[in-house]
């Protein structure tokens, strides 16, 4: 059986908000872009896929493993093998950029150096988040997300803090991951040519 990410009739929600049901089917190397207005539930759907927000119904599967589903215990976020870039980043202020990446991916020094180089943050690896600009912090968080080489990438506005030059770097890195057979679900207000779009308005 293929290692596809399959989302069936997934219902999500947080606070007073309810979204769904959503259906998705992504084979390795495929990407999907969630688009819609502010507050339509893009971030909530990503966080539900990541296991941070409980689902109200429906199923989420990756290959043979069911992450969410009726009668099945929910798989904890850290067992799903996903890489998540949160909109709020959530960088840990007590660790350097390298420290964060190494904590997420112990022993992945080479990959970290390579990714840092591609994201143009090699010089920032020994800095703590307080000394990073908004764009730098976002790339540092992306580095932490990609370092463990996750099979599924859930990226919430990955280029929102980037200017033209660095946005191209970020896009290149993400496309590189796609080319390596990773599954990418991203929420973005900016267009991603060639990526399948999921309109999220009425659900």
């Amino acid at each position, binding site marked *: 059986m293929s290692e596809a990410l399959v989302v069936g009739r997934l219902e999500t929600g947080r606070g007073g908000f309810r979204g769904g049901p959503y259906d998705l089917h992504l084979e390795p190397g495929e990407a999907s872009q969630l688009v819609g207005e502010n507050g339509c539930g893009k971030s909530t759907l990503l*966080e539900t896929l*990541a*296991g*941070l927000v*409980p689902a109200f119904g429906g199923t989420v599967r990756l290959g043979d493993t069911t992450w969410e589903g009726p009668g099945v215990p929910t798989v*904890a*976020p*850290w067992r799903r093998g*996903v*890489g*998540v870039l*949160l909109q*709020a*980043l*959530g*960088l*840990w*202020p*007590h*660790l350097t950029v390298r420290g964060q990446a190494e*904590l*997420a991916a112990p022993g992945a020094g080479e990959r970290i150096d390579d990714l840092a180089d591609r994201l143009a943050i090699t010089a920032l690896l020994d800095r*703590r*988040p*307080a000394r990073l600009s908004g764009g730098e912090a976002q790339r540092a*968080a992306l580095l*932490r997300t990609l370092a*463990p080489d996750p099979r599924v990438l859930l990226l919430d506005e990955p280029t929102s803090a980037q200017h033209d030059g660095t946005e191209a770097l970020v896009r290149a890195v993400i496309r590189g991951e796609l080319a390596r057979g990773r599954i990418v679900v991203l929420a973005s207000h900016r267009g991603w040519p060639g990526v399948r779009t999921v309109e999220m308005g009425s659900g």
Partner: protein
Amino acid sequence: MRETDRGARLLLALALGPFALFALLWILHAESGEGSGGISSVIAVVARTLVVAGSGAALATVVGGALGVLVSAYRIPARGLWTPLLLAPFLLPSVVVTTAAQSWLAGGSLVVLVRGEVGAALLHAVQLAPLVLWGVARSLAAVPRAERLAMRSQLSPGRAARLLAARAAPVALRLGSLSFLLLLPRIEIPAYTGVETIGPRALAAFTASGSDLEGWLWCTVCLGIAAPLLRFATATIALEAAPASLGRPDPLAPRSVVATAIAFVPALLAMLGLGGLCDDALEEGFALAQSEASRWIAALGLDILRVVPLSLALALVGWRIGIGVGRVGTALAALPLVLPGCLPALILLEGGLPRLPAWIADGTIPLDFAQGVRFLGVAVLLGRIADRTIPRAERDAASFLSPITRRFRVLLPRAVGGITASATILVVLILGEVESASLVVPPGRLLPAVELHQLLHYRYDVQAARLSLALAAAAGILVAVIGRVGRGAKGAG
């Protein structure tokens, strides 16, 4: 969500169960002819306890919270000098605060302020307002710079202070409920103000009147009263709205330890002088003070060596329980806090101690254990607050790490500031603890708090003042030292 529902039901059972049990046992008790004063007396004691502890905690929250907002919102000069004065009532044992206030006010027309229900509530508030003040100031120190600048540039100082007050409210309310839980079984202030509350009643039952059954009945009443509040104190709601972490630099921590030591002396002398404790500096007193001084210093030093590691360990264990066992577990661990203070020591005497090998039974471990169990709730509640004030995004980002890495590499370092704050508060509470101390203190061991009680009994006020000064200064210096260690350990974050 599901866990919360289950927790809520369990807590409800915790709240209602004891009341039902209590009613049943009370009837049996009354029939056996051991009850005193009947049900109306019980209701009166419960009501009085609620009034005294409730209004004391409410006042501490309002006053401490307001002062916390004030010191955070405005730049006030000579902070190093008045900070010890603000914190002193919390750093001093209750018996000193009460005796000072009473000898100052009892002779005049303001006597009502230090006697009866009003006095008990006010003295409780005076003692615990610094706790709320400290917590609020710490949490507001963590308001992001951008937000502060926005407030300063766009709002009048008054409106900015109101906004800060709203930001501080969740922490203030939780510390307020912690204050209530601490006050519920208290003995000293009610006893010295002449108010019969649950604490003295339960103590009398377990010791003087020799009726353990009645003592346990009072325990169930305490649990019944405290359960709904424990539910609130352990709730996660609204705390996420609290700004960042308690682990930011402590706004009240003076810049240097030496400055603290120096500042404490005039501040405390001023306070004790006002309390009239220094007015009978007779030769006899001084002579005694000279001969006792070296013993007290040794006793205080030895006790600090015991209390600091105990408090740090307790704060860590409390934090671990607070993040790991859900709200119900947290509430259960916090329960001893609301029970009579002598209870862990009595249970130890009754059950465990005779079976322990002599080298353990004769050391301070039973004392450490009794005091640790008594105050574990403080560590758990503060540990939970420290954890819950880590920003959600950081916690979410840590969800993708293995549980051990998440706990010890991300959540622990991020909560270190809160944990050290909790340890500091525990140091103060344990140094001033006497109820279990007198039951399980190892023979030959001098405890500063017990010594203070004895000195005040015969009004050796000069010595009591000196010892309190040393005690509060030691606690104050520990606040500064632990605060610095906490900051250092947290790194430059």
